[in-house]
């Protein structure tokens, strides 16, 4: 049975049996090529659900709008980590949730109207092809590949001289429209009021200009330190293609190196900033 068929069957059963009010999955979009998020409320709608390599969205973000409502959700492995993140941060309740985990070989870059040919950069170094948490598993679990160097992009950036890095980021941030699409797409961004939109204290002014853009982008990434689960929705939705993953992945790499922590692998481990080791050597203040 194809993954699509398995998802449809699971969704139909869940909706028919009233186990959940809604199944969040994917359906085909208006370009006839790409997938888009879909909320099925009735068993009859289950047949609109699909799964293929264009299912790039991290649907876990939608759970934040459905707190306390029984929901089934289709998740890829990276999205499943988002669920653990939200559970860890007391944002959602596990017992209200039915997780349909999909074994994922990687998804492709979204290009409107044409089938994407290139696998996402993130997927090329992915080390998690089976969801870390699920109730129903769609597909056969695969043994995880050992990726020798999961951060070639970050290492490349680190290797550049400081002034080159500064020039690079100045140009990238100068493009920023501060539309906050990156924030809106991110399953880890759910502050009732974003620091960037606060009037008091005024951390970031409303000017869409380099100074403000730098503070916004730096702190957006830093607020996700030890929390980014690597779905790269932020970079995908950015209308001006800022390389946001280079920021998130740098922090991910350092968090792994310093604190041996990866966000969302389980729902219990204390995140890096909420714990410490007395004798740890972190290369600062020593």
């Amino acid at each position, binding site marked *: 049975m194809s993954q699509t068929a398995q998802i449809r069957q699971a969704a139909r059963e869940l909706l028919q049996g009233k186990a959940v009010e809604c199944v969040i999955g994917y359906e085909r979009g208006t370009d006839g090529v790409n997938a888009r998020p879909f909320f099925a409320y009735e068993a009859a709608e289950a047949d609109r659900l699909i799964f293929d390599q264009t299912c790039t969205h991290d649907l876990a973000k939608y759970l934040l709008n459905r*707190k*306390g409502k029984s929901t089934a959700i289709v998740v890829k492995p990276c999205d499943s980590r988002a669920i653990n993140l939200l559970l860890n*941060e*007391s*944002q959602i309740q596990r017992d209200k949730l039915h997780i349909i985990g999909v074994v994922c070989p990687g998804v492709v870059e979204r290009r409107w109207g044409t089938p994407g040919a290139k696998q996402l950069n993130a997927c090329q170094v992915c080390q998690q092809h089976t969801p870390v948490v699920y109730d129903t598993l769609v597909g056969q679990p695969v043994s995880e590949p050992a990726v020798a160097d999961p951060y070639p992009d970050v290492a490349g950036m680190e290797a550049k001289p400081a002034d080159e890095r500064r020039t690079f980021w100045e140009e990238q941030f100068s493009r920023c429209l501060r539309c906050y699409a990156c924030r809106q797409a991110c399953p880890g961004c*759910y*502050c*009732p*009021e974003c*620091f960037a939109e*606060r009037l*008091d*204290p*005024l*951390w970031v002014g409303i000017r869409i200009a380099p100074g403000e853009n730098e503070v916004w982008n730096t702190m957006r990434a830093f*607020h996700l330190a030890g929390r980014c689960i690597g779905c790269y929705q932020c970079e995908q939705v950015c209308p001006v293609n800022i390389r946001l993953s280079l920021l998130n992945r740098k922090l991910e790499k350092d968090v792994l190196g310093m604190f041996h922590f990866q966000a969302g692998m389980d729902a219990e481990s*204390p*995140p890096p*900033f*909420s714990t410490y080791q007395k004798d740890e050597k972190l290369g600062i203040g020593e």
Partner: protein
Amino acid sequence: MARIGVFICHCGTNIAGTVDIGRVVEAAGQMPMVVHAADNKYNCSEPGQALIRDAIAEHRLSRVVIAACSPRMHENTFRKTVAAAGLNPYLLEMANLREHCSWVHSDGKEAATTKAIELIRMAVSKVARHEKLFPKQVSLTKRALVIGGGISGIQAALDIANSGYKVVLVEREPTIGGRMAQLDKTFPTLDCSSCILTPKMVDVAQHANITLLTSAEVKEVKGFVGNFEVSIVQKARKVDHAKCTGCGICWQKCPEKAPSEFDMGLGKRSAIYIPFPQAVPPKPVIDTANCRYHKHLRFVEEKREGKPPPQCRVCEKLCPVGAIDWEQKDEVLTEKFGAIIVATGYKAFEPAVYAELGYGKHPDVITGLEMERMMSASGPAGGDVTRPSNGEHPRDVVFLTCIGSRDEQRGRTYCSKVCCMYIAKHAIILKEHYPDVQCYVFYMDVRAVSKDYEEFYKRAQESGAIYIRGKVSGIRQEDGRLVVRGEDTLLGEMVEIPADMVVLAVGMEHSPGSAELAQALKVSYDINELFIEAHPKLRPVETMSDGVFVAGACVGPRDIPESVASGSAAAAKVAALFSQEFLTTDPMVASVDQMKCGGCLLCTKVCPFKAIDTQVLRDGRTVAVVNESLCKGCGLCVATCRFGAANLRGFTQQQLLAEVTSLWQ
């Protein structure tokens, strides 16, 4: 709009000698919202303070900046000054022109002046965002909990009770008295230990202000200073102490015997027992592991094969008041307290790790505490010291010090403090009882540091004990005797001493369960599971958890006088606390804006004082809420909170950002 006054202090020439006060006053006067800027020879002098008070009234100032010395020096002084002028005392900010500027930049008047102006600008920006703060008053329960009924806990309980406050004394064992009750005599006076201890135990039992809970343990601690809520487990004793008169017939007639814990296994006790004759309360408990009826019950319950052991129930049959209660279960009592004293004491080091000494293998190798029981007139041998192997009197007795102490590899790093002295005591008493005994002491360093201790050591030497400097490397059995082998480091030769008995001067270790108790009380403990004082010198009986005090050997090795002193000291702290009608809390604590809280609850996990609770709002959201009585104002939650919901009064995000921003505006 705030009306800010800036008062710049010359501090004689301390500031004025380096900083151009005239320029600073002029610059301060032009800062936003500053309506008054003035200088003063000494702001902190009475005339100086009067000038400030007058200026507040004259210029209708709503905020004040004092540019003078370090706030660590005079912040409180000036808070009182502005309060006297009718302002909220927290509407004050200090700019540190002395310690942070004039004193350290005396080589550059220009630079120091520029810096002084900027420091004032920062303070002005910050003070504009100050809010009125009000200390809160919290009522308190004037009732103390003492955990541990050893000499330290007993002393603390009696002192508090005598100050007129109620005390609950909780002891894990069936009797109070602790380790001191096991000792024969005490150094350096050689008083009989139980003769000086038992009257105090009786005082505890009879004191109207003391409630004694034996066979009880603290399970859970909630709340904060003045308002603790403690769950105490009263373990099932299977004897109704309300009915029991302590007549003793049950423990005399009980047919089952077990090794006595109190006598370090050297003697026996019955299955229904009091640990020793002077126990308080003098009422027995049933040791269900050894009780024949309980063995029978377990046999039946576990459906074992064969014939069940007989149901004994002799105690029940003989009890004249029907106090035996087989149905008694563990009970949880929840009580309120205003303060807690921890006096959980120590346990003796287990010497089996030193395989070369053969403890447990050679019966004539015993510990110091076993020697105490042996020597005690009320002990299992009635004070007769004999070799466990054959019951004969020993002639040559070797003492080994530092067993488990001062040893990084197999023991504890610290010195246990009392061993040198109790070994000296044993040597003296042995010689007195048995003049033909020869004592040898292998020592590392003899530590005799309190009053009369050195003299006591001398007395041991005079009694004939031979002190050999070195550590024993092996004990072997030869012809029914022990041969103790080690280097005499002063001779530089190996020595071997044939002995009849070897006494290991075992050190002190934390009492079992210390870490769990410390966690429940939110008190820090070290790698040796010893409790950590708030300050080792200046706050030796306080902890970092307000309202929780420590006494006795749970903090580190202590002898009896020190344990008693610390018990009294902790009691004095409690009495001082209880002498207040209300507790006043510092208003410079954290708060959480519930509208902005996203409910990730990381703050509740990181707070070192467990001062953040959760609350479910009417809209269903779960948010963090600060318990202001527990909060100490570190601000860790503020930096942890991504939502910007947590804030710290007196050091708000707005205030700190204003300080930073003012440097570029």
